């Protein structure tokens, strides 16, 4: 398989990725997919655990679910990190189960929090298109 072959190149880098999601199934799937593709993965099931993991060691990239115990837990964490000089350069990929379109022009739940800002450059909709996701991940890590 193509992706297994890619693994060799990624292996050398052994980029470390922190996956933050309250859904254990999602965490497990992401862990397996990412590890199979040669990344080192750490997991956190909420913002608090993520903060702890970040203190232990700064990962190369963070995959962060937006809605966990609160609707904006992921945003809150992302904003915090954006304002923290130590982490502001760390790439974050946001995940959401919301349809992008619904989020955009439905009664925007987040608008009042976010205003014009968006705390991360990248966002993926769940269910993930794994291929695109891995490609993007790789692209981000190569550039940093």
């Amino acid at each position, binding site marked *: 398989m193509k992706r297994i072959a890619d693994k060799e190149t990624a292996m050398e880098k052994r980029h470390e990725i922190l996956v933050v999601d309250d*859904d254990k*199934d999602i965490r497990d799937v992401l862990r397996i997919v990412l590890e*199979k593709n040669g990344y080192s993965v750490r997991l956190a099931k909420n913002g608090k655990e993520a903060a702890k993991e970040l203190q232990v060691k700064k990962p190369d990239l963070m995959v962060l679910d937006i809605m966990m115990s609160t609707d904006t837990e992921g945003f809150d964490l992302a904003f915090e990190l954006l304002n923290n000089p130590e982490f502001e350069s760390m790439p974050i990929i946001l995940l959401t189960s*919301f*349809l992008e379109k619904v989020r955009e*022009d*439905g*009664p925007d739940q987040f608008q009042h929090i976010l205003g014009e800002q968006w705390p991360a450059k990248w966002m993926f909709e*769940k269910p993930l298109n*794994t291929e695109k996701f891995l490609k993007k991940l790789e692209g981000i890590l190569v550039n940093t």
Partner: protein
Amino acid sequence: MEKRLTGPKQPVPDGVPSPLFLEELKDRSRWFVFLRFIVAPGILLASGAAHLLGYRFHTPAILAIAGMIFAYNLVFLAWIRKMSPGQWESPRIIAKFTYWQLGADYTALLLLIHFTGGAASPVLFFSIFHIILAAMLLPRKYAYMFAAAVAAGVFLIGLAEHSGWITRHRVYYGAEPVLSHLQPPLFIPHLLFFTASLLITAFLVTTIMRLFFLRVRELDTQTGSLAEYNKRFRTLFSLVETMGAIRQSDPVLAVATRELASVMGVRATSVKLLSEDGSRLIYRGNYGLPETFVRNKSVDVAKSPLNRRIIEGEAFVTGDVSKPESFQFGEDLAAARIRSVLFVPMVAEQKTIGVLGAYCRLPDRFSRHDISFFQLAAGLVAIAIENSRSYEAIENLTAERSRFMLRIAHNLRAPLGAVLGMLELLREEHMGPLTDEQAEYLRRIDRRIRTMLEMINQLMTLARTRTAPGEPEKTDLDARWLAGRLERTFQSMAVERNIDFKVHAAEDVPHVQANADQIEQVLENLVSNAIKYTPDGGKVKVSFSSPSGNRVMITVEDTGIGIAENDLPQLFSEFFRADNAREKEELGTGLGLAIAREIVEAHQGRITVESREKRGTTFSVTLPASDNKGNTHGDK
């Protein structure tokens, strides 16, 4: 304003005409000046004619009088020219002008009489005109005085001539003096009747003038009240208009209180709404009340007798602020120099929901008209408040529903996402190799779940187009750009199925004003259906045309399985799938066309279908053309 309704009754200084009279006087004065220019030539003509007929009289004196009349009239004309518009407004100046004119005419008239035979003068009859004019121009008393003055003047001339104090200037026919037989005994009744004629004329004319002015004044009053009613009507109308245009209550109340204060001519107006438990009245809107009065203050109904009477069902109450026991905040009103108030209930659906109040700095200010108008206005304000309440309730409900839909979307999609992720691990053989049969079943599971996901997505879209108020955000779209995109999207799919797929857009197709994402979604849905339900080797043709300049029509025509006539009516209903479509394609959400119709209708367009089973189907979408005929790029 009550004053306006009963007509103007300003006290008029003695000897100075009333304003209406004044207006009349102004016009007449000008008219008389122009009229008087005929007098001098008239005298010349009459003298000439008299000479031709053989009458003789003191011609140089008569000509001199004509010259004098002409001269003083020139002075009057200059006076008129010189008078500024402001002076025309001054009753005293106009009255002065009138007296000067009458005085000059009086002198000229007596001179004429003297030089044409004195008390026996034929010019005597002309005095009547002077009396008529004076009676028209002056108040009754002065008209009589003028009449008396003319009579007295003639008497004096007669007396003076008879006594030889002044020269008698007779009119002669040949050698015979005209009316020379009139000697004093005959002469006196003659003059008495002359005097009576003058006074009767003055009486008749002033009486007619008085009646005339009464009518004019009545008319003026009526015009005034009509104007007032018109103003009030306009206020009510503008209230209704505002209510139609704005649904939130605050701006409507702002307009209502401001307009009402202005049209009622009062210092302030307020809208107080009854609290849920009916114990307090809370200020919701006001115009002109001091900030300190309204801020954080609500009225305790139990402590405010006037408000309580309204809440208990009285149609109106008026209050005098000098009785502070009537008010909970009487001192505040007195401090704002409010002297009288008017409160009327605001009733909606037979329930008093609040109190509309007017506050005035004049005591005992509100008339029956004011009250009935204010009651009408209160009815409207109540409706406005009820409307905005229902509107706010609907808005909340819509927002709540949308939030609920989002929640469902999230909660349904989250587990499906996890399932698809895990399924992918299995199918990618991350968990070990699969047999062909296992792989096939996992593929089928994946497909079913993806259909379900698609259905959720489409339901969301449908819910969104139905609940989102307002129109979709539109841009100017080039039909040819849309055509190109469709062609690129579906070309490979068509080639795979060996379908002859053509997209054609006429050169002159106008742009459409539409939401690009939504319109593309509609067209992609129609084209993918057409390809899906057309057997290999068939034809699918998309064309963009403009049946009329202001519409763009997009037709998607296929040679597919067609739609049974019985199925056509339900075709655009949610979850409906025709039997032959199910046979051809097992999985489908049955939502695509429902969404298409929602979107097209939200664009003020129409979607129609024509079909014959086993022969093919044509969908037509008509959209309004944009005003912009070209040159804008189609991309968003």
